[in-house]
């Protein structure tokens, strides 16, 4: 019971991470298309400037919660994905300094360099996180002690790459929705247009990924197996309706619901495993194998639930304070 609650908490925190950091990653991905020239790109950066760091903390805090709630899974996953994960760290670092340092000097060359670094590191980060998620769903070859070694040849399989492509399209759409909502003027119009175009790619990849997941994991019919995809499909249709009517905030909300439903679907497919074994159906590292004693679980649950709730409260206070649209200046 406590273990399931812990699974839910980790899934929730990582889900919030994807929704929040997803939009600033997405803005980075689409900014070459929607922002032209130094001033517009500066506006795109400023639209996420006050928020990106807080958003990224959801990943750090989610990893911390995973460490406290399921130490064995944390140890297995992080050491098993060793090299890809170190590359993720380097990309996170590069992206962070690009965001923080771009505005420090007033030189077009300096700006161009960090704009390119920001775009590349964000795009690669989405790809790597997508590959990681794809491999989690597909399963990894665990040994008897519960460890594995993820080789590149194993990790870069077609399914994981498909999930990564879907991640690029879905987060690009999410970022475009955010930019359409937050920025004033030309870039917002371009973002709205881009969002409408990207929608078709998202829809195609969504259907393709659904079919591929059935191939990789098999079909297990249940209420959840029908209800959660129904929510994501409904959100995708809502997103279309909102973007055709030019309602950017509604489109952003729909995109957030869409991402949340996708992650809920991934979590539902994994449960009760944190790291399923490859090939599918061979068990894996479950929440019961990975959880510590009751005392530790209770402490970790209290901390992560209370802390996440507090973060949501003051995150939204700051969000409201900074709600003014960003102008190109």
């Amino acid at each position: 019971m406590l273990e399931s609650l812990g699974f839910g908490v980790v899934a929730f925190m990582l889900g919030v991470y994807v929704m929040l950091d997803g939009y600033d990653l997405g803005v980075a991905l689409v900014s070459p298309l929607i922002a032209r020239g130094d001033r517009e790109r500066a506006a795109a950066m400023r639209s996420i400037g006050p928020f990106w760091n807080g958003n990224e903390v959801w990943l750090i805090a989610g990893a911390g919660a995973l460490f406290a709630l399921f130490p064995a899974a944390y140890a297995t996953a992080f050491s098993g994905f060793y090299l890809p994960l170190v590359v993720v760290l380097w990309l996170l670092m590069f992206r962070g300094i690009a965001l923080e340092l771009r505005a420090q000097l007033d030189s077009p060359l300096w700006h161009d360099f960090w704009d390119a670094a920001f775009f590349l590191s964000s795009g690669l980060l989405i790809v790597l996180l997508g590959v990681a998620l794809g491999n989690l769903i597909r399963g990894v070859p665990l040994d008897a002690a519960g460890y594995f070694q993820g080789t590149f040849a194993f990790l870069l399989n077609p399914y994981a790459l498909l999930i990564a492509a879907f991640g690029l399209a879905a987060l690009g759409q999410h970022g475009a929705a955010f930019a359409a909502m937050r920025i004033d003027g030309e870039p917002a119009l371009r973002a709205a247009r881009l969002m409408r175009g990207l929608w078709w790619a998202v829809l195609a990849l969504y259907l393709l990924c659904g079919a591929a997941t059935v191939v990789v994991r098999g079909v297990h019919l249940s209420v959840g197996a029908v209800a959660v995809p129904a929510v994501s499909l409904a959100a995708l249709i809502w997103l279309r309706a909102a973007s055709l009517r030019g309602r950017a905030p509604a489109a952003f909300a729909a995109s957030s619901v869409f991402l949340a439903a996708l992650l809920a679907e991934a979590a539902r497919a994994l449960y009760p495993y944190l790291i399923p074994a490859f090939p599918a159906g061979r068990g894996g590292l479950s929440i019961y194998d990975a959880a510590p004693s009751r005392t530790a679980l209770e402490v970790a649950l209290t901390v992560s639930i209370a802390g996440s709730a507090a973060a949501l409260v003051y995150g939204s206070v700051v969000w409201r304070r900074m709600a003014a649209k960003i102008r190109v200046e």
Partner: protein
Amino acid sequence: MDAILADRIQFAFTIAFHYLFPIGTMGLAPFVAAYTWKAARDGDEATARAAAFWTKIFAINFAVGVVTGIPMEFQFGTNWAGFSRASGAVVGQPLAMEGVFAFFLESIFLGALLYGARGRPSRFKAWSAVLVCVGAWLSGYFIVATDAWMQHPVGFAHGPHGTIELINIFAVLGSRWAVWQYFHTIVAAIVAGAFIVAGIGAYYVLAGRETALGGRFVTAGTIVAFVFSAAAAFPTGDLNADNVTRYQPAKLAAMEGLFKTTTGAPLAILGMPDTENQTLIDPIYVPGFLSYLAYGNFSAGVKGLDAFAREYWPPVGLTYYAYHVMVGLGTIFGGLSGIALIALLLKRLHRTRAILWALMLIVPFPYIANEAGWMVAEVGRQPWIVYGVMLTADAASPTVNGGETLFTTIGFAGMYCLLGILFLTLMLRTIGDGLARA
């Protein structure tokens, strides 16, 4: 390459580089909060410029601190999976708390502090600055509590399959090791912050730019540096030494270069430990003083390294030198800030160029003292990763080999080289641009 050695080199390098920036943020946060708060209350233009300037300096430190901090939390899993798997039920707790209680506070309110209108800060900004400071200091607490448990494990029990189970989280968070190590750490960071403020102020006064505001920085920095240099020695340093004496006598012996168990043990001010022949070369001793410091009695017996099996000795040389560097520099900080304080009371500080030069040039040294202090704590804990419970040799990831870790270490080294250059460039440029543009 030996995997454990590669893992240790990587952790030592990445943590030592990372820690340079928390020193700056934990030490400068109270100054940022104070100047922002005062500017919001009084609305005077000079204080508002001071607030904007220190916020900018803080933000550069914070940015590099955040990006170099990201790998730290992940390294527990990537390189130290054995340790994480066995003791995650305990050390995972304070690390999770740091994420949800400290990082959110710091990063969300720093966003609020950095973005928004220039000029007189709003009340909201003033509160944001205070909350950023609270977040920075809380973050320090959770990290120190994690380390304190590894130094002095309490509130746990041995579970099945070599795991460590949490029994009492309050015992972990509130252990006397955690509390005193925290106060010592934060006090030492504030010493560094105070010397940064005084040193940059001294530069402005010496350069003849912004002499009024520069003078205010010198005054504020000097007073804070003096008070906290004193507090770094007594009571916080003293109580840490007391903890080491009680719980880690082998570390104490290594810190003091005491090879043989001695009654009325002398304190070595200088000297070179020779581990081979187990003596201190060319020592300068204060007779009986180590016994006094450790037990309050000049003739008490102090255990030397000979009381411990050789395989449980920490690396003697590094522990000894790091400890002496820390204490020596701490003494110099107290002396310099004391002299500056006397000059201030005589109303001569802002005209005495020699003291201003000294204040400006001392800025890097609190960093060295802070790093040396951590070296004493961590190197002196070896060969244990959790003192008396788990050996460092059993803690690494079984699936990661030395070559991989060496490769990523070189990658981190390149990345940090770039970061270091960027950091210095931006800091020097910000200081060079001066207070008018801040």
